[in-house]
């Protein structure tokens, strides 16, 4: 008599069978994959005699896709190269790529899938701090291993994460020292997009300027992400006349910011500007003519002239086209698979605990940025480099620091 009743009769068993079928399929594939449990894999990871599966977790869609595409490409390049050279412990790397879709909960969901369903041996991924914060508890709970490529605010150190980008002090302190010395800068104007990385970076910068350099911060400001009106800001800069503008503006705001600086007559012949948020990637949108003569602080620039980098740039362009550009994070992404390979081989195992234990002290002499070494605190020793931006959008390195020890919890800067 009642349709709902018959609906239940007919729909229920079908739903059940469907899901049951899916489940058994999943289980079958899982078991066939995890058949091997030798010394190299005692924790049920997705490792067979000939393959090892890793995950890639970046945003391929959404607002962050712009930034994360480079990391995806660089990680792939490294993995392909490792596979071509015989893989890791005799196994070829297979990649499961997941899309975080610029959405933090999606990142968390996908991280869970990679770790719990796919049992990947390592994950290369995340870009924003927010996405890393979202997946971090999952990596810690499931004891996964994440290689995180972005320069970031520090204040974090997890057993389950290797940070291949710089933490804030590495990027900021040396560059501030340099600009203070080189330009005799005493007054600074700090500004950034409104989220944790710029805010934390500026806090560190302020402490350093006030306590170490004996300078003065004459302005500190944050604009909402995506803001495109910087007219009032340019006037404030003119009013305060700082020796240096220290900028950490990101995303679409970046383009508007530099275009409007130029339009307001704030150019490098009148104003020194140092940014910690402009890489080759951002430059594409901004256009070199808008930033000519400004300085950028990164650990890597595409124009670095050393054999490692020349080879890396050539290979990257061969794979992704001659117009592709390589920014700091892209290079850091490239380091991830290589660092992992070195640690796995040192440990003789894919087990996360063993790989983590083997990681500190791992050195990479073939890194495009030159030389890196994994610190006890899971960050990398690296150099800070300052480049002057040219009218054609390329970066000319004008200063290179010594290797800097990573210090994610800098005493006196918090």
């Amino acid at each position, binding site marked *: *008599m*009642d*349709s*709902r*009743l*018959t*609906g*239940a*009769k*007919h*729909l*229920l068993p079908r*739903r*059940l069978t469907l*899901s*049951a079928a899916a*489940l058994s399929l*999943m289980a079958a594939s899982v078991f066939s994959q995890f058949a091997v449990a030798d010394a190299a894999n005692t924790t049920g990871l997705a490792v067979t005699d000939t393959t090892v599966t890793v995950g890639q977790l970046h945003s*391929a*869609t959404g607002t962050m896709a712009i930034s994360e595409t480079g990391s995806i490409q660089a990680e792939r390049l490294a993995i392909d190269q490792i596979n071509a050279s015989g893989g890791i412990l005799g196994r070829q790397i297979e990649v499961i790529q*997941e*899309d975080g*879709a610029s*959405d*933090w*909960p*999606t990142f*968390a*969901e996908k991280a*869970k*899938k990679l770790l*719990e*369903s796919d049992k990947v041996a390592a994950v290369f991924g995340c870009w*924003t*701090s*927010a996405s890393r*914060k*979202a997946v*971090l*508890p999952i990596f810690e*709970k499931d004891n996964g291993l994440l290689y995180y490529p972005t320069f970031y*605010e520090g*204040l974090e150190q997890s057993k389950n994460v290797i940070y291949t980008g710089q933490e804030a002090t590495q990027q900021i302190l040396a560059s501030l020292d340099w600009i203070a010395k080189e330009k005799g800068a005493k007054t600074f104007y700090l500004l950034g997009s*409104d*989220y*944790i990385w710029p*805010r*934390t970076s500026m*806090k560190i910068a302020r402490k350093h300027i006030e306590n170490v350099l004996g300078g003065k911060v004459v302005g500190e400001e*944050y604009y*909402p*992400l995506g803001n495109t009106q910087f007219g009032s800001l340019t006037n404030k800069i003119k009013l305060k006349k700082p020796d240096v503008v220290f900028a950490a503006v990101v995303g679409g705001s970046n383009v508007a910011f530099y275009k409007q600086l130029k339009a307001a007559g704030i150019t490098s012949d009148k104003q020194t500007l140092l940014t910690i948020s402009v890489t080759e990637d951002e430059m594409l949108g901004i256009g070199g003519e808008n930033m000519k003569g400004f300085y950028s602080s990164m650990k890597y620039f595409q124009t670095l002239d050393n054999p490692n980098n020349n080879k890396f740039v050539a290979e990257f362009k061969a794979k992704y086209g001659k117009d592709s550009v390589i920014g700091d994070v892209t290079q850091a992404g490239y380091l991830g698979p290589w660092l992992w390979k070195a640690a796995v081989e040192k440990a003789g195992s894919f087990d996360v605990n063993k790989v983590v234990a083997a990681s500190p002290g791992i050195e990479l002499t073939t890194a495009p940025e030159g030389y890196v070494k994994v610190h006890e605190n899971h960050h990398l020793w690296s150099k800070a480099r300052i480049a002057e931006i040219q009218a054609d959008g390329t970066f000319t390195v004008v200063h290179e620091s010594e290797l800097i020890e990573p210090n994610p*919890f800098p005493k006196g800067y*918090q």
Partner: protein
Amino acid sequence: MKNAYESLLGGKQGAIGLLVLAVLILVVFPLALDSFRLSMVGKYLTYAFVAVGLVLCWGYGGILSLGQGIFFGLGGYCMAMFLKLEASDPESTKIQSTPGIPDFMDWNQITELPMMWQPFHSFSFTLLAVLAVPTLLALVIGIAMFKRRVGDVYFSIVTQAIAAILTILIIGQQGLTGGVNGITDLRTLNGWDIRDDSSKLILYFVNAALLIGCVLLGRFVLTSKLGRLLMAMRDKEERVRFSGYDVASFKIFVFCLAAAFSAIGGAMFALQVGFMSPSFVGIVPSIEMVIFAAVGGRMSLLGAVYGTLLVSFGKTYFSESFPELWLYLMGGLFIVVVMYFPNGLAGLWESHGRKWLSRFALGNKVFGQSVVKARVMSPVKVATPQPSRELETTP
């Protein structure tokens, strides 16, 4: 007793519809899905609270709020604040400069727990706040807008702007709120580890039960005189006003109710997913939740739940398999549903599903409608692209 049966379960037909849903989410999913997929369903079901609320205030009340994320977010934040305080005991935060406060506060040089956070040490206060804070905000917005007869698209745009403001505020006050990152790494609820598979299962059932409770409450409202008034208002607001009703108060009520539902969803989200971030407060998630309701059927409480599940599954599936296609699909789906199937899945079910079933299963038996409800019911006309103005058989 009879009365409750009619108003809560919607007679035999409604009761069976509800039973199917209950069996699906309480029995089938937990049995058929592994813990990973099940916790995904759990997450989707938290969005369903919002969609159910939207059926009440948009489908029946004609009030399209594009800011339901506000309430989902506030509910979630209230719960997350409590959980974060519990996760920030002095022992586990001893590496901080100020142990015992949430980690992001420490990063922002805050050395003392802010006033706003103090009461969230208490679980009972938190439970109260989860409901009260969003509902009170909805009340304020509702009074301000509806008493002054700001309606229709104006209301939609204003709620959207409020969602934008709240997002900027949360992001800007990162010492208080965790900023863009949100409040992360939530661990225990009164000492009970919410990250275990077993506790996740329990939370899933709590969530599902609460959702069914909200559907029941929604039905109670819709089958009451208030439900008829809502629809009457949507179609003939003047007539209702000049029949002696304070139209605004009904709109405020249903808007607050939808806000409270959303808030419960948000709190359950924080519990199940283990974090809360401003990305749930803004404009995009708010409109996505409208999609859920639209696809499921804006006039159907059960449809909203199915719509949420279906769209969310689709999102996960397509963004895994064809990330490029996903936005085309989502956008296209939305356009098609709004233009050609304004009553969504529920409408299709009424017009085609039933017929198909009857031919298939019952042969020549005729479908009857329960006699008591006949006064409210009428067949849904799906042929016209206009959203059907009739009250559904099973709201």
